[in-house]
C-alpha cells in the first residue's frame, strides 16, 4: 500500500472541497472496497478524507412518503430498518443477498453504489485492463469471462457493476443526492449516475471530481409484490451471476404496473424498460413473462464463456415475474 495522509472531515461540503482540491485524494467511509484495492495497489490515493463521522447516517420518512437514506447508513442497518422491510422488501432482500454480515456492518450506502467491479483482470495488476490503465487493453474479452457483462458493455470493457443493492434501487426509481465541491446540492436519478464504459471505462460515474453522495431518495414504492432473486456460484457470500429485482401489480386480470431491473450482467444496475413494456397491460401468464424475458436480453451478446448468462437471465426473469405475479409460489 502507498503511504497516504488522512484527515477527518467536519462537514460534507468541506469533505467535497478537500477531495476536489487535493491531488490523488479519495473519500473513505466503510473502506471495505477501497482498502482492499489499496492493498493491491489498484487504488493508490495520496490523501484520504475520512467522512465516516459525518451526520449522514439517518433514515427518514418524508411527508410525501419518500424515504431518504443517508449515504453513511450501513448496509446492515438499512436491511434491518422496519420501514424498508415493510415498504421496500426487495431492497432488504437485495442487501441481505450481498457480501457477509461483517462487511454489511461496515459498508455504507454511498460506498456500495460507488464500489468498483470485481472483474478478475481489473484485480490482477499483471494483466491489461482499460479500467485500471486507460489504453492498456482488455484481457477479459477473449479471456476467462463467465462473470462478465452481456448488456451495456463496450469493446474496451466488459466488466459488471457488482452491487445487489443498486439493482433494487434502480427498480425502485431511486435518486442520489450529492454535494459538490462548490457547496451546491443536486439530485441524480440512479439511471444517470453510471456512465456507459464506451472507450473510457475508467470514468465510471457522472459525478464531478470531489462530488460527494450524501443520500439516496426512494420514492413511495408502486403497488404490488416485490422480490429480489439472485443466482450465484455459492449459496451465500458470492457475487451475482445474474439477479433480478421485480415489482409487479396485477389488478383486474392484467398487469397494471411493473418495474424490472437486472444485476450481475451490465456495467450498471440495469433497469429493463423493454421488459416492463412487454408485461404492462398484459395478462399475468407464462407467455407474457417469457416475452418480457426475451425482450430483456434481445440486445445482449456474450463473449464466449459468459454466453450462458443470456439463457440464465431469460429463465431467471421469467420465473421471477411468475413468482411476483402470484402465479408461482416464491
Amino acid at each position, binding site marked *: *500500500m502507498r503511504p*497516504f495522509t*488522512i484527515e477527518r472531515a467536519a462537514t460534507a461540503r*468541506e469533505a467535497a472541497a478537500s477531495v476536489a482540491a487535493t491531488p490523488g485524494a479519495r473519500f473513505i467511509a466503510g473502506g471495505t472496497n477501497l482498502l482492499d484495492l489499496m492493498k493491491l495497489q489498484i487504488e493508490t490515493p495520496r490523501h484520504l478524507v475520512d467522512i465516516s463521522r459525518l451526520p449522514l447516517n439517518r433514515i427518514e420518512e418524508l411527508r410525501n412518503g419518500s424515504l431518504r437514506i443517508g449515504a453513511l447508513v450501513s448496509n446492515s442497518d438499512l*436491511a434491518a430498518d422496519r420501514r424498508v422491510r415493510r415498504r421496500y422488501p426487495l431492497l432488504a432482500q437485495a442487501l441481505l443477498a450481498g457480501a457477509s*454480515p461483517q462487511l454489511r*456492518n461496515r459498508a455504507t450506502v454511498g460506498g456500495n453504489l460507488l464500489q468498483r467491479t470485481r472483474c478478475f483482470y481489473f484485480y490482477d*495488476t499483471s494483466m491489461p485492463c482499460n479500467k485500471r490503465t486507460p489504453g492498456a487493453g482488455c484481457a477479459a474479452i477473449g479471456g476467462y469471462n463467465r462473470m462478465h457483462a452481456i448488456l451495456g458493455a463496450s469493446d474496451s470493457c466488459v466488466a459488471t457493476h457488482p452491487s445487489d443493492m443498486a439493482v433494487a434501487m434502480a427498480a425502485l426509481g431511486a435518486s442520489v443526492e450529492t454535494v459538490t465541491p462548490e457547496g451546491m446540492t443536486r439530485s441524480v436519478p440512479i439511471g444517470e449516475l453510471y456512465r456507459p464504459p464506451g472507450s473510457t471505462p475508467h470514468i465510471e460515474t457522472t459525478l464531478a471530481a470531489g462530488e460527494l453522495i450524501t443520500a439516496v431518495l426512494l420514492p413511495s414504492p408502486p403497488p404490488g409484490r416485490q422480490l429480489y432473486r439472485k443466482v450465484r456460484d455459492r449459496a451465500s457470500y458470492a457475487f451475482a451471476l445474474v439477479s433480478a429485482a421485480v415489482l409487479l401489480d396485477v389488478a383486474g386480470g392484467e398487469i397494471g404496473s411493473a418495474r424490472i431491473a437486472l444485476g450481475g450482467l451490465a456495467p450498471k444496475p440495469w433497469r429493463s424498460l423493454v421488459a416492463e413494456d412487454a408485461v404492462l397491460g398484459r395478462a399475468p401468464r407464462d407467455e407474457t413473462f417469457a416475452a418480457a424475458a426475451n425482450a430483456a436480453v434481445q440486445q445482449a451478446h456474450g463473449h464466449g464463456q459468459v454466453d450462458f448468462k443470456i439463457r440464465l437471465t431469460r429463465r431467471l426473469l421469467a420465473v421471477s415475474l411468475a413468482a411476483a405475479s402470484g402465479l408461482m409460489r416464491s
Partner: protein
Amino acid sequence: MPPIPTGPDRHEWTRRALLQAGAASGAMASEFLPSMRDPSTVQTTSSEPAPAAITAPVTLRVNGEEHRLVLDTRTSLLDALREHLHLTGAKKGCDHGQCGACTVLLNGRRVNSCLTLAVMLAGDEIGTIEGLGTSGQLHPLQAAFIARDGFQCGYCTPGQICSAVGMLGELRENWPSHVTKDVADETIAATDPEIRERMSGNICRCSAYTNILAAIRDVMDGTER
C-alpha cells in the same frame, strides 16, 4: 476542518512498516517471482524508492482499555491489534475481508478488522477474543466450542467466536437474513439455516461447520454442556 496531524517519521519504523514499504515498492514481488510478472504490464517498477511512511496518533479503546499509539496511516485495525498491542487472537487469513478470521467487535458489531483503518477508530469501542473470556473464565461460546469440538486447527476460531457473539446480538434485534422467508417479519426464528447463513462470513478450512453450528446452538438454547 481539524486535520489529524500527520507527517513523515522515519524514527517510527516498525518491522511491519518496513515489510509494507518493501511490498509497496514491488521489490519483493519482482525478486521472488520474476517469471510471474511480465515487465511490459507491471505498473509499479522495482527501481521506485520505498516511499516514506506517514504516521498519525490515535487512541484505541480495546477491551475497555485505552492505548495511545502513533501508527503508520496504512495500519489496519488487525495489524494494530496484533503487531502493536500484541493481541494476537484475531488472525490474519486472507487480509482482504473474505475469510472472517480477523473478525472483531466494533461498537458491539462484528467487522473484518483487516479492512478497517486503525487511525479512523478514535472514540470507538473495540472488542477482541481476549476481552471475551480468560482461560479461567471462558465465555459461554468459548466453552461451547470446546465442548462441541467446534474446530480442528483453531486458526479461524477467534473470528468464528467474535462473529457468533455479533450474530447473537443481531438475532436479538430480529435482523432478517438472506434465508428469512419474509423480511417484514417482526420476530425471526433462529433456525439452523438462519445460523448457517449468518455465519457465512467465516470460513473454516478444516470444515468444522457442523460442530460450530452445534456449539452456537447450545449457547442459544441455553444447553451448554
